[in-house]
């Protein structure tokens, strides 16, 4: 079910955006790939569709490009309904996953393809291709064939080709999928720079949450054809709408419990894992006895050998595992109930000799407003 509990997101959905998707549905032989999706993308925004495989994100993108015909619903771009338009009549261009550059054409010819198709004059094409080559800094490689280029260069050609026609909407299909990790982070920022420089509205599809967080202004998290949550990267991370989003984005400690006290200024959650109820320092919409999950990000869990102050939001456990990541370590703390709590610990000192190690008895604790109560 679509859960979008955030009031501002609902308000946003009612105001039509530059690109509006209304109750879009796509079925393949009885299988529902995209299930009544509503979405609004503002002009100039980089919007990411984030999800695992089979989440429907790629199908949704292909519906926008015109490669799939929706079973139902509407797609409006700049006020014009584009459902019935074939891909070659849509003012939308796509940068394909692994680029789909034409192997028999040079870099120039690839970029000029769409312009030629529009019947643009020869000198105008040459000028536009020149601008595009300059934009992606490939002037020297204009005469090369795609197979003579590196992965990063191919991606620039693909970007230049999809931007040459100045599309109203740019689609990116797993833009970094074919690049290695190091190049990826460099190209992510470069790509965003170019897109923002041109001010083109962009919808991208990715399964990589870091990529979505780095590049997008807003993200829609998708699962099984539904949009689970729409929001800015930090909203989605800090205020996940449900269990799926909380565990899909980053790592999280999910603790199942029931609402014990429901008051306007605070709530408490009774769990089997902690001796005292969890104290949440703000009110939420719920009722007493409602089953909920308490989501706590590992970097918000403090770990110490000495018992912290306060009566609530702490527990005793044993360090079972330590995963060392260089910049930080993740401590796996086993509670007496059998539940495991992850705690990130920034490695701010070199060779911390009196640090916590395997089988140490420790206390985990967190602040009153550090966790999120998930009602669904």
């Amino acid at each position, binding site marked *: 079910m679509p859960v979008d509990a955030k009031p501002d997101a609902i308000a946003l959905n009612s105001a039509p955006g530059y690109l509006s998707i209304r109750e879009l549905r796509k079925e393949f032989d009885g299988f529902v790939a995209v299930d009544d999706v509503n979405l609004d993308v503002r002009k100039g925004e980089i919007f990411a569709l984030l999800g695992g495989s089979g989440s429907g994100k790629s199908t949704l993108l292909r519906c926008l490009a015109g490669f799939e015909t929706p079973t139902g619903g509407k797609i409006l771009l700049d006020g014009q309904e584009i459902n019935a338009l074939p891909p070659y009549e849509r003012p939308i261009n796509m940068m394909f996953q692994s680029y789909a550059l034409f192997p028999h054409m040079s870099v120039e010819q690839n970029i000029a393809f*769409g312009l030629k198709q529009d019947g643009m004059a020869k000198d105008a094409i040459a000028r536009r291709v020149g601008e595009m080559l300059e934009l992606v800094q490939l002037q020297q490689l204009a005469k090369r064939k795609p197979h003579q280029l590196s992965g990063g260069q191919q991606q620039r050609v693909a970007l230049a080709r999809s931007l040459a026609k100045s599309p109203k909407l740019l689609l990116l299909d797993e833009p970094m999928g074919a690049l290695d990790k190091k190049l990826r982070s460099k190209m992510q920022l470069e790509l965003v720079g170019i897109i923002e420089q041109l001010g083109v509205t962009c919808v991208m599809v990715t399964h990589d949450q870091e990529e979505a967080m780095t590049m997008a202004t807003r993200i829609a998290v998708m699962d099984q054809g539904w949009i689970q949550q729409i929001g800015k990267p930090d909203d989605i991370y800090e205020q996940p709408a449900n269990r799926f989003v909380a565990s899909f984005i980053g790592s999280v400690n999910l603790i199942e419990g029931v609402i014990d006290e429901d008051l306007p200024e605070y709530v408490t959650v009774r769990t089997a894992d902690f001796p005292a109820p969890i104290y949440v320092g703000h009110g939420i919409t719920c009722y007493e006895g409602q089953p909920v999950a308490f989501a706590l990000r590992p970097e918000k869990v403090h770990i110490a050998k000495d018992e912290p102050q306060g009566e609530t939001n702490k527990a005793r456990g044993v360090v079972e595992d330590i995963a060392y990541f260089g910049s930080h370590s993740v401590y796996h703390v086993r509670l007496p109930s059998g539940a495991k709590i992850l705690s990130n610990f920034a490695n701010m000192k070199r060779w911390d000799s009196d640090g916590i190690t395997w089988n140490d008895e420790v206390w985990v604790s967190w602040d009153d407003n550090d966790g999120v109560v998930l009602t669904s």
Partner: protein
Amino acid sequence: MSTPAANPASDINEAATLRQRLRQWLPGARSAVIGVPYLWLLLFFAIPFLIVLKLSFAKMASSIPPYTSLIEYVDVDKAFTVHLNLGNYTQLLADSQYVLAYLSSIKIAVVATFFTLLIGYPMAYVISRMSPSARNIAMMLVVLPSWTSFLIRVYAWIGILDSNGLVNRALQALGLIDEPLHILYTPLAAYIGIVYCYLPFMVLPLYANLVKLDNRLLEAAYDLGAKPWQAFVRITLPLSRSGIVAGCMLVMIPAVGEFVIPEMLGGPDTLMIGRVLWGEFFNNRNWPLASAVAIVMLVLLLIPILLFNRAQQRELEGKLA
């Protein structure tokens, strides 16, 4: 402690020497594997070809075998003399009959290849767009007729094209024609026969090429504003060029020398070099002239073969670079 340590070491040594021995032995095995086809080519292509070449420089003689030998030992002079007779070649050039036969063969082969391509390309294209299981069945159907004898398949066309044949009877039954059409024993029948028999040789390389075509390239073309037919012209067609060239060569080269089809279906006006060759060899018993006819045909065919090879090489280099 020393024994268990020494054992693995000696094992390693043994393995190393074994590998070394294998390596010494392997080049021999490798050249044997490569040598077999070369030996085959030598025995059944190079030597027969040299015999034909030798024959083409001989003279017709009423003996057994019916030609003069090139090298003769003259007892008086105590010397070998070589008789290199170029008369057969000059005759080929001088007699317009032969020149016409060559030109007509090439014309028939080119036209037939064109129509084979015209029919074969859409077939290969449609099959390559089918689901994988349907593809296999369709390709099977293309190849299946080749499992019966070539001669029988050509013969069957007589039954189809005859004045009393299937085509004429069907057309008459439909009331489209009053008189049976005269198709059999005309050049048209020869064209039909060649196109039919060589179609699989066109479809196979084209299919092999088109099935590899990345559908996302077409989607990218549509995305950039190309209508389906424009995407076909600008993407599919250029990318399938090597398949087109291969198919055309595979059809045209044997079609130039085709004998059975024009003989059985073509009638007397279908002038083809294969028939001329047959006539010289079997009717006139002029083996040297027949050999010269064959050599000239080979040289003519060598040009497109070389062009084809070069095109393929260039494509290969382009892919590797």
